């Protein structure tokens, strides 16, 4: 069945590339295995935040979108090898990736926050439940963090290594707290449960997944949601650099979906929080 799908996709791509400037058929490559962004149901149908969003965005852009599933590891290479036209897979917009592919404007930007244990003194941080904007400007962000920094004096914060969050913690929390890095989320969470770290730091969709995992029932979110440009531009569609018309069409439609609250509604449905990019 997959052979036929891929072949059909290849033909669709062929038709698209050979056609006039703005074609109507677009093949979207997605993993179908990155819940709740995109996921598969046992019957093979696709579902998730991004899938529903695209079913809203494509008609706005007057594009006839079909989905193919593809492995994450070869997503970007496959886009450039014309296996499909769009990457839809929780793809963060980064300067490195922007060298080889183009991005649409972001349709999501996940806020970042802390998790701790129910009975921890950190469980009721000041500003809990509010949203703080972090812009990436050190002076501005330092002032925002100062509102609840004192609570972390002498505490240990666990974070997944090699993420943008590590640097943020080092810069603003490093002077008062110990930052401990972990290779995987599972190790980090195990140490929170075991009391070896006092809090964990991650994007809230990831923390939400940790909270929902069996054995982590005592975990709670604490402190403000931190959202904004400090975490990079956000999550966007991956496009070939040559497909400028497609980018224009998607940008316009995504902007419309953000402006009329579609992104917010879908986000709250799938993430239980608002991931609409702030700017």
């Amino acid at each position, binding site marked *: 069945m*997959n*052979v036929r799908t891929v072949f059909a996709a290849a033909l669709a791509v062929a038709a698209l590339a050979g056609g006039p400037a703005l074609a109507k058929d677009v093949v979207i490559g997605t993993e179908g295995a990155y819940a709740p962004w995109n996921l598969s149901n046992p019957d093979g149908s696709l579902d998730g935040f991004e899938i529903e969003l695209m079913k809203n965005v494509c008609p706005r852009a007057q594009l006839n979108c079909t989905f193919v599933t593809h*492995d994450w590891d070869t997503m970007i290479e496959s886009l450039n*090898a014309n296996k499909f036209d769009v990457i839809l897979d929780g793809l963060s917009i980064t300067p490195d990736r922007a060298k080889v592919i183009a991005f649409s404007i972001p349709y999501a930007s996940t806020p970042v926050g802390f998790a701790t244990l129910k009975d921890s003194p950190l469980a009721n941080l000041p500003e809990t439940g509010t949203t703080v904007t972090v812009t990436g400007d050190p002076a501005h962000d330092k002032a925002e963090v100062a509102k609840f920094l004192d609570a972390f004096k002498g505490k240990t914060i666990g974070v997944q290594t090699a993420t943008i969050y590590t640097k943020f913690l080092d810069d603003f929390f490093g002077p008062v707290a110990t930052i401990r890095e972990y290779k995987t989320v599972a190790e980090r969470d195990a140490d929170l449960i075991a009391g070896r770290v006092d809090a964990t730091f991650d994007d809230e969709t990831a923390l939400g997944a940790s909270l929902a995992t069996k054995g982590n029932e005592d975990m709670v979110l604490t402190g403000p949601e931190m959202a904004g440009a400090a975490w990079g531009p956000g999550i966007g569609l991956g496009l070939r650099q040559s497909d400028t018309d497609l980018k224009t069409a998607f940008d316009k439609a995504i902007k419309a979906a953000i402006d009329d609250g579609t992104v917010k509604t879908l986000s709250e449905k799938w993430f239980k929080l608002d991931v609409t990019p702030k700017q």
Partner: protein
Amino acid sequence: MIDFSLLGFGQGGWGAWLLAGAVMTLVVTLCALFIGAVVGALVAAAKLSKRRLWRVVGDTYTTIFRGVPELLIIYLIYFGGSGAIGAFGNLFGNKGLSPPAFLVGAVGVGLISASYQAEVFRGSFMAVAAGEIEAARALGMSRLLRFRRIIVPQVWRFSLPGLGNVWQLSLKDSALISVTGLAELMRQSQVAAGSTHLYFTFYVAGGVLYLVLTALSDRAFGVAERRVARSFRGSLGRG
């Protein structure tokens, strides 16, 4: 621990999904083994050739395909193949043509398996007693008849145990095709795991299905070996 209703065939159960993956794994590996047998026989013939050039060609093939990581070969065929077929398509104004993942997988795993099968065939050919070929010649059998009546049946018999090993290797190599998005067992397990966040459950389930496939094929080869051994006098077969 593991919620077994998730692995069932009812509403919300991933049983059929995983089983479809197992069938795809089996089919793609069978195709790969077939491609490997054809290419492998040719490579074995080249390695056994009296001509030095052919021997070099055969040796180069087995050196490369046994010495390079399987994943790399699959990437090469997947992306390199796209380039080649794409260029071919462009000639006819048909841009963006790309080989289907199934074909890439079967050819990739098949070419790797060919390098191992070639060694199996070569070893088996050398195991055929020189006296038998001499005797056949003495009886006036033609080259073709010797090949058909004396060499093939014995090479086939000596090869079976080795081919069983190659089959198992290929079955596991086929998991690497998941990088092309082909809906085989590895990929189906990943999708189910990622969609439910139950990684342990679905990777264990996938592992069990691989074990079922390898255990069943082990038995099938055992039966085949005994059958083939029946037509020979007790010497080598397991009886």
